[in-house]
């Protein structure tokens, strides 16, 4: 399955890009984060990251589908 992953802020800096088209065997959004954390040595624990699929916030156990656009959201600090 292929998904688009978008990176922001600290994750963008650690991954070294804004976005990638990724071939994955992860079945859930949480599984995808584990995979990315391993590959890119991400320092942010999964428990502090939220996820969105196609611009909707989703739970960590949400199944991935081919073509999904996934955003991982480290702790926010607007305003």
């Amino acid at each position, binding site marked *: 399955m292929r998904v688009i992953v978008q990176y922001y802020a600290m994750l963008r800096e650690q991954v070294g890009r804004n976005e990638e088209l990724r071939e994955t065997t992860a079945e859930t959004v949480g599984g995808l984060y584990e995979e990315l954390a391993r590959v890119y040595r991400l320092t942010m624990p999964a428990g502090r990251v939220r996820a969105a699929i196609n611009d909707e916030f989703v739970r960590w156990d949400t199944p991935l589908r081919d073509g999904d656009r996934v955003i991982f959201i480290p702790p926010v*600090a607007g305003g």
Partner: protein
Amino acid sequence: MFELSATPLDVSALRASLMPRAEAGALVTFEGWVRNESEGRSVTALTYEAAEELCRSEAEKIFGEARAKYRICEVRVAHRVGTLQVGEVAVWVGVTAPHRDAAFGACRYVMDELKRRLPIWKKEHYTGEPSRWVGV
């Protein structure tokens, strides 16, 4: 209405956009300014980064919640992205309502929820120390 802006916010224009409705008797605005200090560190500038579409959809949800909780006329938010100097306006929230209770309540609610929920990140730049993503 929610907007992200890469250029300085025009506060007068934002306020003026909320003016025309005759049933509005109260306007409450909140502005967040870039401070020269953060948790004891001397701040020289900030950089904001936002997940734009997700910000928009989440802001609309927050506006809907504010309308359900408070009897308001209009609500408008503008948030900066990019690099800001000390003293610049980072965020502007304006709420009009027939009465002041609702305007105060909704402005506070919207600001608190924006800060908690919008996918916006802030990097602080310091004198003599590496920059740092806030909240991380």
